């Protein structure tokens, strides 16, 4: 059961817009990780991973799993490079739509 319950049906559509609209599949050029990404501008990036993608990424796999480590705070530079390549190749459009 949802806990923070919207009273308007429109809110569910807003949730969809902000979390999944215009997300594009990006395949990592170095491993089997496939994520969904969005770029509202050159400097903005949104990356949605799933469990399979995290498991496929050797960079994230090398993180120190102990709880007192801040290792998990790093991203994967190879994936970021793959996202840049997707932009260059025209597979990932850059630009926002009304704030999302």
């Amino acid at each position, binding site marked *: 059961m949802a806990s*923070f319950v919207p009273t308007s049906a429109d809110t569910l559509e807003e949730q969809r817009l*902000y979390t999944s609209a215009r997300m594009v599949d990006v395949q990592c050029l170095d491993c089997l990780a496939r994520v969904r990404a969005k770029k509202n501008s050159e400097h903005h990036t949104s990356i949605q991973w799933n469990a399979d993608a995290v498991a496929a990424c050797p960079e994230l796999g090398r993180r120190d799993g102990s709880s*007192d480590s801040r290792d*998990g*705070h790093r*991203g994967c530079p190879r994936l970021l490079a793959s996202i840049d390549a997707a932009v260059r190749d025209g597979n990932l459009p850059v630009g926002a739509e009304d704030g999302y």
Partner: protein
Amino acid sequence: MSDYPQNCNVFYMSDTRMLDQGTTPIRFARGWHCLGLASTFADGKPHAIHGFGTKLVVWQDSKGELNVLDGFCRHMGGDLTQGEVKGDHIACPFHDWRWGGDGKCKEIPYARRVPLRARTQRYETAIVNGQLMIWNDPEGSAADRDILPPELPDVLTDKYTPWSWHTREINGSHCRELIDNVADMAHFYYVHFAFPTSFRNIFEGHTATQFMESTGRPDKSGGYSDASSTLKSEATYYGPAYMINWLTVDYKGFVTEVILINCHIPTGPNSFTLQYGISVQKPEGLDQKTVDYIAERYTESFGDGFLQDVHIWENKVAVQNPLLCEEDGPVYQLRRWYEQFYTDAAEVKPEMTDRFEFEVDTTKANEYWHAEVAENLAKRAAEESVSH
């Protein structure tokens, strides 16, 4: 959140956007919650902590262990926090029923035997970083010690100042308002008087992290406004209620490492108790007095920061459908992450815990803000030259 009516749309145009205030959850988050510095409970007396819609009793037994039970005796509802510690047990002031840290009634001095069903709500405990943590779960699961917040290696040693610990009650707001800050880039300029020059988030599993770099605004005072200082901040929530914030402050080339704990206990559906603690890495080559002075200044400045937030929370309304612009952080994804703690463990969806990364583009915002600050400074200079 004020008591404003939920549908205050007396008249509106069809394209007017309405605030969906939604309904707040009745349940409290699953996870580890910090009750405060362990040392404050270690005096052989019962202590009262408001939390999870009730009052908890905390006491130390003869082995030095801290115990936490629901504060009301299962006999006739007496207030255990006003009782007495007798041996290892907490004794009710009403009829002297004695409760153990395992939640069982151990003794009723006037009774032939203790009823078998005499068990009360107990909370499993852990001590992390010198602080007392308890596990809360409306489903009653055993504490998950794998997801305790990490121990900070050098804190509580000679290298850092002892925790400066503070408590503040917040009324009229659900604690999710506090969590929202993790994804809120622009409020650092408006509420805390700093330019956030870099801003990123990662949400994964039970953690949510904010990375921020900022410099102070020269046109303001208080908060993070000191223009001669730049801040590198890495702040992670471990579960729903305990954040460790690693801060590197560069003040005119003088670098200090500061650790800020930001934690809370929900007290009711629209209230919570905020606690924060600060520990500063002692700069080498300085005498104790100077070190204490520096620690106090940081405590003051980050304490001010919280008070700036509190004023906003106590006056805003809840909103389930925030309207975002391109410069805003991932509020919806953060709330999706936060929802896991209010969902039965078996119902937690992958998208609530899947890794998500977001980098805010701060370039335009900073351009506009620097122009605004320059204008403010020019105005101030003009006013000062008139008055002289």
